[in-house]
């Protein structure tokens, strides 16, 4: 008798799930309170486990790195001398740049976005998806579509926000598409995550126009026409650009600047692209 009831419950639950999948594929806003509420309960546990794990792992790693660090230290001291010299030169150039900027009234300085630091507390363990979770949420000013950077390069975009956490989809995820451009020539392209090439540490660059001037070694940054990504964030460097068989477009690969294997801390840009555009239009 009990097993028969079980069967009905199974069918009922399955149907309910399929219905939910259908509904949430189009609109998942109404689940935010649920996810957020659950976050209050789960995030402290995740943070705790994550912190313990990180500490143990870092201790082990530090120990093994101690040896190489001594050698490295010697080399780095030499580097410091060189860099000091460079620094003095660059500082004077910086002043020059500032003067020139004022001169040209370059008011749109890319580096002025507001950022907050966040810690990566959980990550999908399987290899199918490249999403991770950070310990800052709407309470800290993180919003859906906020850009996430680390190590000087773009890492991903916030897809889901709770009160004290946010879920980030990396640009290396198989569904990720970023509208980008070559910094030098300003020609547009699409940077697409692809599981098959990510294994070699690469992303795909597609949709480059045939006559566009993008070569291997070019710096690829987020484009100014992207709807969600702020312009001018470095993504990586182009390599192996070739002409497609259609002869109308070119495509190639991109080596990302951010290191995705060892992400522990990231920066979230709290300014959204929409807001930048809205204030830009109002002025």
């Amino acid at each position, binding site marked *: 008798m009990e097993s028969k009831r079980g069967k009905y419950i199974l069918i009922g639950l399955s149907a309910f799930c399929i219905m939910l999948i259908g509904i949430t594929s189009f609109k998942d806003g109404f689940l935010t309170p649920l996810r957020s509420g659950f976050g209050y309960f*789960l995030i402290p546990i995740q943070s705790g486990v994550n912190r313990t794990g990180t500490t143990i792992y870092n201790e082990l790693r530090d120990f093994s790195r101690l040896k190489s660090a001594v050698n490295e230290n010697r080399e780095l001291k030499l580097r410091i001398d060189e860099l000091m010299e460079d620094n003095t030169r660059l500082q004077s150039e910086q002043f020059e740049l500032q003067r020139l900027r004022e001169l040209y009234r370059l008011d749109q300085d890319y580096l002025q976005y507001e950022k907050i630091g966040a810690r990566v507390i*959980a990550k999908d363990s399987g290899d199918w998806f490249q999403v991770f979770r950070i310990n800052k949420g709407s309470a800290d000013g993180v919003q859906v579509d906020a850009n996430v950077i680390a190590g000087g390069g773009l890492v991903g975009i916030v897809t889901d926000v709770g009160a004290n956490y946010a*879920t980030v989809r990396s640009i290396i995820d198989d569904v990720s598409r970023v509208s980008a451009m070559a910094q030098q020539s300003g020609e547009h392209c699409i940077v697409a995550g692809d599981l098959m090439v990510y294994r070699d540490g690469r992303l795909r660059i597609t949709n480059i126009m045939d006559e566009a001037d993008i070569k291997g070694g070019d710096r690829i940054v987020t484009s100014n026409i992207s709807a969600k990504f702020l312009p001018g964030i470095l993504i990586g460097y182009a390599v192996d650009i070739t002409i497609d068989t259609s002869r109308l477009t070119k495509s190639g690969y991109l080596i990302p600047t951010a290191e995705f294997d060892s992400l522990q801390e990231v920066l979230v840009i709290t300014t959204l692209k929409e807001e930048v555009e809205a204030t830009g239009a109002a002025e």
Partner: protein
Amino acid sequence: MRKVIFNIILIILAFTVQCGIFPLMPFLSATPNLLLILTFSFGFAHGRDAGMYYGLFAGILLDLFYSGSFGFYTLLFINVGYLNGICTRYYYEDYITLPLILSVVNELVYNLYIYIFRFLVRNRLDFWYYAKEIIIPEIIFTVVTTLLIYRFFLYTNRQLEELDKR
């Protein structure tokens, strides 16, 4: 009762370890799917209904973790729990061969499910590449972990059952 609470805590623990600790170790080329192991072990040891409810809980945890369509994992996990529960009539305590076979079958189903509904529908047709790079390593890791976890799980559940009887 203690058994149920213990098992729920075990699922939460597995979830946090799976999402919080495994990804920190870049030298692990694949990671075992602890939630799947637990769900099918519950189903196999405690029967269809229990398997289904534990699967429901594990699936909801995963669905809450991912953004996007809700219910994707829940749907799979309740069915895994239930279907493995059917094999419960072949369940003997020290019999490890069948659980290992089940573990392989479940991993295969789990990965095919993701491949078909998340990758094939986007026209990613090179199945052999994904099989070689993702599915097979994950199956191997999971089977090895099953050997350890299943024993641990049986042992603790037996102890807890005796405690409950007193």
